[in-house]
């Protein structure tokens, strides 16, 4: 693809091994940066509050996003509704570093995602299986994350989505070459992306975990399952001691294979976000945008 797309994939590579944190104010953004966030996601309400408030959830006020851009030196991301081309144009106009076309907000289009190839700024999109991931990449996403179930503090869906993507990739890898055409048809994705996964055993873009990560152990679990980094949304600023928990999650992502260190990091973090089980929630955000 073109040079801009390569540069956008490259920025995601720089974020690897890091934690991207949801923040709603410049003060929170500074706490996140000082705790070791490799990027922040600027939004007016974190997913747990969006869930609690109900109603239509939209792109944040550009003024609020700009305040966060001025507060920190790390990359700043922000969310647009699925299919909302104009919201994405607005974020590009304020030079956002990454747009998250996100199921956390109310979808603006129930059929079409944004044609992300028409933009210069990069996009990250959620996926719960390989088909969704490759469709988003075909539309121009330069980074993928699991959908998980945002705002719940329950990691089960992020685990399910990561395991699903990985097992589908292993299946493609093990296929005969003449079987890939049918696989592309079944996944409803372009053949060349299927072929890439068959040859490389991985997505052509960086893949993070997101949705329901609340503890250092959750973050380490996702890394062990193959995530290249972690988004933490409600888990930090809905907890008792955000700065300490944020710093612990950052270290857990770096040393996700060291149980002794993880034990130390998990000590004394104060109260975790309360969380809701997937059976208790009425709205499954992961079902938005396939």
């Amino acid at each position: 693809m073109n040079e801009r797309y390569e540069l956008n994939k490259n920025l995601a590579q720089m974020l690897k091994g890091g934690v991207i944190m949801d923040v709603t104010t410049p003060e929170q953004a500074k706490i996140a940066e000082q705790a070791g966030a490799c990027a922040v996601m600027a939004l007016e309400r974190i997913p747990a509050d969006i869930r609690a408030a109900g109603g239509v959830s939209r792109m944040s006020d550009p003024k609020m996003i700009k305040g966060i851009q001025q507060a920190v030196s790390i990359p700043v991301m922000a969310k647009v509704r699925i299919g909302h081309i104009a919201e994405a144009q607005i974020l590009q106009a304020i030079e956002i570093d990454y747009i998250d076309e996100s199921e956390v907000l109310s979808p603006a289009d129930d059929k079409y995602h944004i044609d992300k190839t028409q933009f210069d700024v990069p996009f990250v999109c959620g996926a719960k299986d390989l088909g969704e991931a490759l469709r988003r990449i075909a539309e121009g996403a330069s980074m993928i994350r699991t959908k998980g179930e945002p705002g719940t503090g329950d990691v089960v869906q992020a685990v399910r989505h990561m395991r699903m993507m990985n097992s589908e990739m292993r299946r493609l890898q093990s296929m005969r070459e003449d079987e890939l055409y049918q696989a592309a048809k079944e996944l409803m994705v372009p053949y060349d992306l299927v072929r890439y996964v068959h040859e490389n055993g991985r997505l052509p873009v960086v893949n993070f975990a997101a949705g329901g990560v609340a503890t250092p152990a959750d973050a380490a679990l996702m890394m062990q399952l193959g995530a290249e980094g972690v988004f933490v949304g409600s888990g930090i600023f809905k907890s008792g001691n955000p700065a300490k928990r944020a710093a612990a999650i950052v270290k857990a992502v770096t040393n996700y294979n060291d149980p002794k260190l993880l034990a130390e990091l998990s000590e004394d973090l104060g109260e975790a976000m309360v969380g809701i089980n997937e059976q208790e929630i009425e709205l499954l955000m992961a079902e938005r945008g396939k």
Partner: protein
Amino acid sequence: MTIAILAVQGAFAEHGAMLDRLGAAHFEIRQAADLARPFDGLILPGGESTVMNKLLRELDLFSPLKEKIDGGLPVFGTCAGLILLADRVEGGERCFGGMDVTARRNAYGRQLGSFRTQEPFAGKSVPMVFIRAPYIAQAGPEVEILAETGGHIVAARQGNRLATAFHPELTEDTTIHAYFLKMAASSLPADETFPGQ
């Protein structure tokens, strides 16, 4: 010869892949226990310098690595790694230092300012990928300037310290990694031979 790659955050795996292509042995440093293995050179990768600076200190890596760098260990920093090696950092904190340069963080602005170009490095034209990159705003007399683009210094060397504002590990071109391996090999005792190229 073995190269250690700082792997607390960022694009460290890409450096490993470049060293594989050049046939050089390498391993990752994520915590103090990893320093027990001997190594002859160190790569500081791209990523977020604020994150690396913090994790280096909190994971007890800062002092032992600084001691090695100050003691002449060959070290190669790309992008964030350049910032870690700069004596002065505009818009950020000094980390290891050791190069008499002023690094300007996010010198090209946000992601829309990221770009790719082709310029000579020590006389040979190489592709250069800049991602929210810094550049060297000022360099002292001991610093050898190896590459410039748009009037700014983007690669430099001072003794055993090499730094680039761009990411050679994101291209197919192994010139700069080979340059670093040669640099590291020349500071080895005479009986150890250079395995790459």
